[in-house]
């Protein structure tokens, strides 16, 4: 290895980067835009679902059920004065409501007799995500309401308590650990780290290498004594540096601005980021091997980014994917880094819990990076 040749490349890259105001701006703006998107715009929290209610049993119990549902703050009640069961279908058909609740006559009476009252829920399944989530919120609200009703009943009829006391009671009180408020911001903002480092590694690296091919400087370098790996390592070192700076930047913004809890080890986060960068830079190098123009590199990058992000668990849980897709995620570095980032931010984990992910990231990273360097041909034919 020749240190001077390597350092010449690093110095050259830094000098070029310093003059490339557009890319520098991009480095700064891209994380801000992504943080804004995932911090404010895109949310998997349920909010503002339009709910239509038909109450054919104007009892206090029915009223309390609706109150419990409203208390979830997930729903907007559409104005439903004097609504009748015939309204239910048109609501869904016209989109006036996304979900509709029908409380039939005899609701309170059934309750008083100790029977389980029946209510009907109709939901617009064309947006299955919202429908599923809304249904879960509704069930949750119904459970809360039911347990309150029961306590209320026992308070008013203490004589019955003896009878009930014999029946073992299961009281479901869901408590979400690590992200107690179930705020999707807390879940997604750390994920932006994985996204940005992927974009930086894959896109910027491949562009930088392919640009030299387009410029003709790659051919010029091919007649010099420099080795392909010196060139590529030299080019990726400044990128890795930029990646670590951005990791710190995003971490600070996530903590200070978005109040994402940061419970775990920051040094471990940086070590994992370095290992993850080895992966993304390797992907970038591999893309540059097969691309002759910057446009080709860009298209290949976006083609690869989609599965890398979609299957990483960033937006959709891996456990919800079909079996074959779950197997596929085993080789995706994005998946492991996502686990590390969320572990460090939300669970307060560090090397003790996340070392397996770090080891896999290291193995995949070495394979991708070496693969990129070895398949890069120094000769330009």
């Amino acid at each position: 290895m020749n240190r001077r040749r390597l350092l010449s490349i690093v110095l050259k890259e830094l000098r070029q980067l310093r003059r490339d105001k557009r890319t520098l701006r991009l480095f700064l703006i891209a994380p801000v835009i992504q943080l804004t998107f995932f911090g404010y715009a895109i949310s998997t929290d349920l909010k503002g679902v339009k709910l239509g209610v038909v109450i054919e049993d104007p009892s206090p119990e029915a009223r309390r059920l609706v109150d419990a549902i409203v208390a979830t703050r997930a729903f907007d009640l559409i104005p439903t004065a004097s609504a009748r069961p015939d309204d239910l279908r048109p609501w869904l058909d016209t989109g006036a409501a996304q979900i509709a609740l029908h409380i039939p006559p005899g609701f309170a009476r059934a309750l008083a007799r100790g029977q389980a009252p029946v209510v009907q829920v109709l939901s617009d399944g064309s947006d299955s995500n919202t429908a599923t989530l809304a249904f879960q919120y509704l069930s949750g609200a119904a459970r809360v309401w039911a347990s309150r009703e029961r306590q209320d009943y026992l308070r008013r009829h203490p004589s019955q308590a003896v009878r009930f006391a014999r029946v073992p009671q299961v009281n479901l009180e869901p408590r979400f650990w690590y992200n107690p408020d179930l705020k999707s911001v807390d879940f997604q903002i750390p994920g932006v780290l994985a996204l940005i480092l992927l974009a930086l590694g894959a896109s910027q690296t491949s562009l930088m290498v392919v640009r030299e091919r387009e410029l003709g400087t790659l051919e010029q370098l091919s007649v010099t004594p420099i080795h392909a790996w010196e060139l590529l390592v030299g080019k990726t070192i400044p990128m890795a540096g930029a990646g670590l700076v951005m990791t710190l930047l995003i971490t600070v913004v996530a903590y200070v601005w978005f109040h994402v809890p940061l419970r775990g080890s920051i040094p471990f986060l940086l070590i994992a980021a370095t290992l993850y960068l080895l992966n993304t830079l390797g992907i970038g190098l591999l893309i540059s091997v097969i691309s002759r123009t910057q446009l080709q590199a860009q298209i290949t990058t976006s083609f690869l980014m989609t599965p890398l992000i979609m299957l990483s668990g960033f937006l959709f849980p891996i456990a919800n994917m079909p079996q074959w897709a779950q197997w596929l995620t085993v080789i995706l570095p994005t998946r492991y880094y996502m686990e590390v980032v969320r572990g460090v931010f939300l669970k307060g984990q560090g090397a003790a819990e996340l070392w397996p992910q770090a080891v896999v990231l290291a193995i995949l990273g070495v394979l991708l990076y070496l693969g990129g360097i070895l398949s890069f041909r120094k000769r330009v034919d």
Partner: protein
Amino acid sequence: MSAAEWVVETEGLTRRFDGFVAVDHLTLRVPRGSIFGFLGPNGSGKSTTIRMLCGLLKPSEGRAVVNGFDIERHPEPLRQSLGYMSQRFSLYPDLTVRENLEFYGGVYDLEPGPLAERIEQVFDQLRLREHGNDLTAALPLGWKQRVALGAAMLHQPPVLFLDEPTSGVDPASRRMFWEILDSLAVGGASIFVTTHVMDEAERCDLLGVMYGGHLIAQGTPAALKEAFPGFLYHVDAAPLLEALEAARRLPFVADAAMFGDALHVTLPADDPERLRRELESAGVTVRDLRRISPTLEDVFVQLIALRERAAEGAEGGGR
């Protein structure tokens, strides 16, 4: 002459691209310390040859030794001992002239101290100091070409390969560029240069002419002109275009070509009066007709024309 005196030596050097032969069994010897001009029409195999000699392309067949290093067996010392200027611009436009040179110096493993001195030398030699701290992108083409030459010669390679270094450069810059090449050759460097410009070819010590992947002529400019087949006449006639057509129709005319505002006509025998008679009987006024010695351009055009005619003949005979 011993092998060490050849700076480039090829034997049967061949390169094929998908069924087409760009360089066809080229055997070439270039003496050390000379400026070797590599001529030939576009697509004749000049650049492919240079790219093989620099180690950028693998030969399909044959061998070549550059500065004593077999291009396939010793690529590493070969790279350290040559400088290359491709047809394409090969500098970083977003670096200054000095930064470009510093970068290439580092790539050639020059130590910082000596490199800084060497850059000063190159600045003086190539007259680059004035724009040393300017971005390369902002320089006129003539300057850029000088910077590219500077980058190629920074590590003082014994061999320089320059592929059309002056294409698109204005005459003044072109002249300056060649003065620099002359001084480098005086300093002992061997220069292998391709060009389409005949007054540049005139400045070379030795010329090789490529056509269809073959070396069809080699020698000093004087020797090539000496070997011009037939007799060349300068014909000032009116109307010029009709004169050209008439001359070409004449069976005893070997070649006729437009040359400025006159014709250059080649006859196998020294019989200018017959040419004058025939042209005038074709209705052309001949104002001046005199024998001249051929320029390199005449030699070049003639060589190519002969080859083309031979190729057409072979094709016609085959039918």
